[in-house]
């Protein structure tokens, strides 16, 4: 009964979404205020219905209702409760429903937090979101309903994929989807602006905090996925350039470009067309990612059971969204002014360079991801494009971005002078060079690439501190340094915090790829192995039972310089219901290094208490990779909470102060 209610709520939601996607848009076009007024209540109703539907599915999971096909396929009565709840999004149908839930929540948030916006604008934004929601609801109802019944019901469920039975599943997809779907708000603002023809600074100002919020979620979601892969897959890697990772990385790159371009549009009124195009791209790439993952054209960790109808539907939806928004863009964009002029060297031109490089980076990822599909479709054979391609392309593309990241905050809007910037940043070069020379030598081996990474990271931190100090000096006006520092606007804090996050990330990537050590060895109980000064002693393996698996649990003593540090327990699990083996690595995490042990396989399968193939890792600074991402998201959060986004700003629709180099 409850699943039917959920299904019914979803059908109602589709009708409400259709209403939301038509009436307010028409009302805004024809100036019918009564129609416009439908937008907010409809968005609230939509959120309520989808939330109810989602709750129904969750109930079916919690109550082990195996007469629902989706539950029977992705759950099991032995499954611990937290994974039964998270199992809701452990498969295709449920993850789409989660996507939908996030979308309606975003729309609800817009309805709730947009009191200072003109009603017509709100109607257009919510109307666009309504159309997107309608498309996705149709998709769910027609091809992927999670509420289909299995008659007679199964006695037991097939269980959740063991890889997914991890706290990562509870957090990673919701964060990632919040980010993906969040770009739909930036998209809706862009479409609303195109429809109204009012592409001005006010539009950019309204759009900025929403874009930033989506970007923060996406950053955290990707980082969380990377960390999950690191500790769960047992290969010790943190990024594999897997097509599905790329699918989430592309909207991130486009979104990062969008954030910077929105800054220019708000401050200077320039780049409007470009900003709109980026907003459309970021969301289109999110949709493309969904298509790539859900249609089964890709083979990857994330590919769920496939059904060609789904691929076709998403492809049609994708073409409709991208086609109609680009057509609208082509029709409307020429009416949009070009905005303030700027010189060859200026804050604008530097941000433009940032944008071009990010977009090119995004395009290279797209190329590397789609190229094998293209070659296969042309019948020219099967190929794979591996990490070396992406690494070869990314280092040269990111080097100028990272360098300019230190310079741009010093550049004035409109026209900047190179000597002036050089004077301001010259002292940052010294610590950067010192770090680049010294740190690799401390770790034993100096190489140009290692030094480059560290140079850029130290450069970003040093320039950020210099820039901060300079601004505080200029705005001090007799106050103490500390008081002046604390009174800086939040967006300024946020920017530097996020940039320092990038630097921290770069340190992590550079150090771990330069100095990690790995050993695959055969170990008998009592034997030991050394990696980078860490001494592992294998004590043996014994059988333990988990709630829904049996495991071989290894015991290792970790020692440094003859001092005992801790005991580590990597596991090899066998899940009862799926008979799939799973490796659980044991990690001793630290600020400056992780050490990592995982069990391979017993040398003789008949004697699991004997010798094992074992993998041990030493990974310096690896946690800085995710720490950097957290700092980036934190920076975004701080910037998003800047006061000026909360002030009633309808009057401030004109271009804001062009003076000086204060704001980014």
């Amino acid at each position, binding site marked *: 009964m409850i699943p039917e209610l959920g299904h019914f709520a979803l059908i109602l939601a589709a009708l409400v979404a259709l209403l939301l996607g038509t009436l307010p848009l028409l009302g805004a076009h024809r100036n019918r205020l009564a129609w416009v007024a439908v937008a907010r209540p409809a968005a609230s109703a939509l959120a309520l219905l989808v939330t109810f539907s989602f709750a129904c599915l969750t109930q079916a999971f919690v109550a082990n209702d195996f007469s629902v096909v989706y539950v029977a396929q992705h759950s099991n009565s032995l499954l611990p409760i937290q994974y039964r709840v998270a199992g809701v999004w452990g498969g295709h149908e449920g993850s789409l429903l989660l996507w939908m839930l996030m979308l309606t929540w975003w729309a609800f948030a817009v309805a709730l937090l947009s009191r200072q916006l003109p009603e017509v604008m709100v109607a257009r934004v919510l109307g666009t979101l309504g159309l997107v929601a309608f498309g996705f609801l149709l998709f769910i109802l027609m091809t992927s309903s999670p509420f289909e019944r299995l008659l007679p019901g199964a006695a037991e469920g097939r269980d959740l*994929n063991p*890889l997914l039975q991890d706290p990562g599943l509870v957090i990673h997809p919701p964060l990632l989807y919040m980010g993906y779907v969040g770009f739909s708000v930036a998209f809706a603002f862009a479409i609303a602006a195109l429809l109204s023809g009012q592409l001005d600074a006010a539009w950019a100002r309204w759009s900025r905090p929403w874009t930033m919020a989506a970007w923060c979620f996406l950053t955290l979601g990707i980082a969380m996925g990377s960390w999950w892969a690191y500790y769960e897959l*047992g290969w010790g890697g943190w990024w594999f350039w897997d097509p599905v990772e790329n699918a989430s990385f592309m909207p991130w790159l486009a979104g990062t470009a969008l954030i910077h371009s929105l800054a220019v549009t708000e401050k200077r009124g320039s780049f409007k067309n470009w900003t709109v195009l980026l907003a459309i791209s970021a969301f289109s790439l999110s949709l493309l990612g969904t298509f790539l993952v859900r249609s*089964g054209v890709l*083979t990857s*960790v994330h*590919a769920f*059971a*496939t059904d060609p109808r789904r691929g076709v539907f998403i492809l049609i939806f994708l073409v409709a969204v991208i086609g109609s928004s680009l057509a609208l863009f082509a029709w409307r964009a020429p009416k949009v002014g070009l905005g303030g002029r700027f*010189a*060859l060297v200026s804050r604008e031109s530097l941000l433009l360079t940032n944008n*071009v490089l990010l977009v*090119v980076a995004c395009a*290279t990822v797209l*190329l*590397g991801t789609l*190229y*094998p599909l293209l070659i296969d479709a042309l019948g020219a*054979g*099967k*190929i*794979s*494009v*591996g990490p*070396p*391609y992406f690494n*070869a*392309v990314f280092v*040269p*593309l990111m080097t100028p971005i990272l360098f300019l990241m230190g310079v741009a905050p010093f550049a004035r809007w409109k026209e900047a002078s190179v000597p002036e910037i050089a004077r301001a940043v010259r002292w940052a070069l010294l610590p950067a060079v010192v770090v680049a020379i010294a740190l690799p030598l401390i770790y034993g081996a100096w190489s140009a690439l290692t030094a480059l990474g560290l140079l850029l990271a130290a450069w970003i931190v040093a320039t950020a501190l210099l820039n901060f100090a300079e601004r505080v000096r200029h705005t001090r006006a007799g106050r103490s340094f500390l008081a002046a520092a604390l009174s800086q606007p939040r967006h300024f804090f946020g920017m530097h915090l996020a940039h320092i996050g990038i630097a921290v990330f770069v340190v992590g990537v550079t150090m771990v790829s330069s100095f990690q050590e790995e050993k*695959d*060895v*055969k170990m008998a109980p009592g034997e030991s192995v050394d990696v980078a000064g860490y001494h592992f002693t294998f004590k043996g393996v014994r059988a333990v039972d988990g709630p829904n698996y049996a495991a071989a649990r290894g015991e290792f003593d970790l020692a440094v310089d003859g001092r005992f540090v801790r005991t580590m327990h990597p596991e090899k699990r066998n899940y009862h219901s*799926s*008979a*799939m*083996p*799973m*490796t659980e690595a044991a990690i001793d995490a630290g600020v400056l290094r992780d050490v990592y042990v*995982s069990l*391979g*396989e017993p*040398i003789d399968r008949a004697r699991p208490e004997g*010798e094992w*193939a074992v*993998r041990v890792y030493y990974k310096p600074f690896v946690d800085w990779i995710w720490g950097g991402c957290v700092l980036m998201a934190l920076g975004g959060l701080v910037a998003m909470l800047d006061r000026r986004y909360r002030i009633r700003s309808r009057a401030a629709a004109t271009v804001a102060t062009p003076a000086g180099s204060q704001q980014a």
Partner: protein
Amino acid sequence: MKSRHKKLALIGGALAVIGIIAALVLNALNSNIALYISPTDVAAGKAPQGKVFRIGGMVKEGSLQRQADGVTLAFVVTDTEKDITVNYKGILPDLFKEGKGVVAQGRMSDAGTFTANEVLAKHDENYMPPEAAKAVDDAQSRAAGKHVSPSSVSQPKTGY
């Protein structure tokens, strides 16, 4: 500078940068793609010499052998028609199993065996990597063409 000159400089600079980037990207792409080649094609001498490529197929039952160090391995990949011996040093993925599909990336050694630096097995018990499935299907349809008895060969699971 006049604004027209500035524009020209900007456009020229942008074109140069894009040209360099395009060259870089295409070069990287060209030198980093790995072709899939079936064991039959390897036997026919179609494997690129000294270049990285991927082979796909099934791990032959009973073919896995371990050297004394415990982590140097050899196993046979077959597409049911031809076999190829794969050497690998390291830990095998969880889902590596004799009789199941596998994809290995590496290059040919002088001895005519395949030296893998990466072995991939996929994440679902029934799942066959599509490249492995294709190699086996192709070999079997050739066999079927010869013997006109397709049912004599049991189809491997190619579902996802």
